[in-house]
């Protein structure tokens, strides 16, 4: 059964290659292969999630090399949760894109599968250098997807996006090298053991390496002041691609959880207490800047991009708190904000393609077809994004506020979360009234409205499903909360993780450095 752990990494890789080689000129076959793979992967992810629910981390030894000498993948509750979230989002985005967006450039489906391979690998790996490799895989695929259907704006923005990520990758290597130089290992379980044995003369060096790694993950998670790449990327990419990218910032958040809080957060580690003093101010700045961006955005897609930024700020506020109660709240908001942001991107594009030359600019325009339906969809997406009841954004924010209570300066953190929520509500209400109410007030449409073109139903269904998920998250919040609390507790149960990967009777080898 544990052999299935490798499937979410190997299957998309094989399928991406086959799509390029076999189905290069046959878009219908590409769609079939890609959709079938993603459906299957969702099934595998759900299976792995159920498998991981017993609370035992399961290592998969690549090439059967024993840890820590070989590379391991580790399935635990957290990685299984991220797998399910990724496949679910990917399937809905792919359904949306397969209705026509994939025709705008070549190799969309191959790149999409490579992207899935990188994401799944990053969530499953139990080795820090392997994490770097999977980061590169998902970034390479994301460069291709970002440039999909390229225009001038995307090419100019693409260079900046690639450059900032290459710089971050270089920094990642410096960090990994420093950590290896001190501990002599890169296996996460082994690192958790060795970090506690590092002597005082080497502790500063290890802290430096771990702090560098925090900078790298902060770039990925778009925390201020390293967030400037995000609006120009998410606001410009093809909307289905931007919707998929909603999960990419969460890879950075996941990596901070896994590496900084779980691996280097154990008793005796010199890198303990590194995250909170740095990440909380950065998160506050991200939240404020993101909300200002939401207020100032002139198109729906840029608004959605800045809302991703604001939600990363909210998430990082509670992510930095190293207790399992706070981490459970962070995980709930992580799942919610990924789905809500993707929903907002897709609704925005549905509106944009019906408004003709106006696209999704926030200016009044004549009425467009299916206005009421899309207004309802936008309302759902906006409620979820702003965090208003009754959807999961509200529950997520309440839970975050509760988790923050008692931390240093918590009244200020509360004030920031509440005031930015209010401003987001204002911005979204203004955008909604401009898009959906102003048209009704404008003069009647031209005498001869063009005959309605048949519109594909699949994108509507995909978007509606995506928007229904925050409703489900709110409806099943109780069982989900228990699940996430168990996930957070398992993350901090370092001993069982180490024993699962390195074997039960692992006397820590002395540190020879």
């Amino acid at each position, binding site marked *: 059964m544990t052999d299935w752990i490798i499937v979410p990494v190997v299957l998309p890789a094989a399928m991406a290659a086959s799509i390029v080689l076999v189905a290069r000129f046959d878009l219908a076959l590409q769609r079939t292969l890609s959709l079938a793979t993603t459906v299957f992967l969702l099934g595998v992810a759900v299976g792995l999630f159920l498998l991981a629910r017993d609370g035992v981390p399961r290592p998969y030894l690549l090439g059967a090399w024993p840890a820590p000498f070989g590379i391991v993948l580790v399935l635990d509750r957290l990685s299984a949760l991220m797998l399910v979230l990724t496949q679910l989002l990917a399937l809905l985005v792919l359904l949306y894109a397969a209705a026509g967006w994939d025709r705008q450039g070549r190799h969309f489906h191959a790149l999409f599968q490579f992207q899935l391979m990188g994401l799944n690998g990053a969530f499953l790996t139990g080795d820090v250098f392997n994490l770097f490799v999977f980061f*590169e895989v998902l970034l390479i695929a994301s460069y291709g997807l970002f440039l999909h259907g390229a225009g001038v704006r995307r*090419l100019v923005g693409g*260079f900046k996006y690639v450059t900032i990520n*290459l*710089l971050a990758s270089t920094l990642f290597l410096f960090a990994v090298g420093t950590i290896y130089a001190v501990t002599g290992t890169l296996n996460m379980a082994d690192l958790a053991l060795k970090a506690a044995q590092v002597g005082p003369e080497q502790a500063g060096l290890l802290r430096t390496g771990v702090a560098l790694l925090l900078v790298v993950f902060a770039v990925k998670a778009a925390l201020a002041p390293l967030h400037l790449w995000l609006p120009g990327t998410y606001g410009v990419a093809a909307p289905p691609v931007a919707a998929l990218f909603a999960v990419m910032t969460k890879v950075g958040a996941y990596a901070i959880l896994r590496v900084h809080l779980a691996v280097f957060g154990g008793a005796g580690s010199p890198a303990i207490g590194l995250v909170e003093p740095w990440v909380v101010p950065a998160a506050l700045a991200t939240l404020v800047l993101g909300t200002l961006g939401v207020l100032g955005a002139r198109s729906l897609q840029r608004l959605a991009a800045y809302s991703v930024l604001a939600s990363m700020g909210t998430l990082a506020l509670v992510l930095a708190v190293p207790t399992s109660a706070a981490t459970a709240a962070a995980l709930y908001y992580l799942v919610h904000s990924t789905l809500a942001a993707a929903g907002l991107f897709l609704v925005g594009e549905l509106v944009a393609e019906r408004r003709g030359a106006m696209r999704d600019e926030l200016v009044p325009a004549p009425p467009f077809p299916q206005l009421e339906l899309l207004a309802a969809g936008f309302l759902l997406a906006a409620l979820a994004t702003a965090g208003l009841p009754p959807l999961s954004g509200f529950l997520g924010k309440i839970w975050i506020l509760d988790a923050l209570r008692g931390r240093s300066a918590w009244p200020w953190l509360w004030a920031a979360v509440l005031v930015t929520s209010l401003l987001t509500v204002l911005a979204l209400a203004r955008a909604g009234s401009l898009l959906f109410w102003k048209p009704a007030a404008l003069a009647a449409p031209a005498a001869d409205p063009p005959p309605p073109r048949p519109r594909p139903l699949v994108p509507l269904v995909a978007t509606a499903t995506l928007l229904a998920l925050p409703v489900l998250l709110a409806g099943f919040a109780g069982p989900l909360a228990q699940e996430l609390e168990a996930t957070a507790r398992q993350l901090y149960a370092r001993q069982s993780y180490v024993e699962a990967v390195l074997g039960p009777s692992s006397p820590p080898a002395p540190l020879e450095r």
Partner: protein
Amino acid sequence: MEALVASGVGVLTAVGVYLCLRGRTFPVVLGLSFLSYAVNVFLFATGRLVVGRPPIIDPAAPGYTDPLPQALVLTAIVISFGMTALVVVLALRGFLEAGSDHVDGREPRDERR
């Protein structure tokens, strides 16, 4: 030897950072290359600088050198090589489409002829 390698990494990084902060694409690409050279040498040194020892345990040899950083460097070289190729193509396409490779997406006013 330590001083030489350390100052080499330092100089390469400084050059790389300086070039990455320039406003046009070509110096930035060069800067990224310099940074990747710097990190390769740095990774190589993380296994400690050892001369004339085999990278495997050999009873006849007086010791061994850590083989893992060499594997890491190899991976890093392959990735940075591919990335440099991609970023060069991207810079070129962007320049051809936008007519300028300045970071602002257009020529600064004082340099325009």
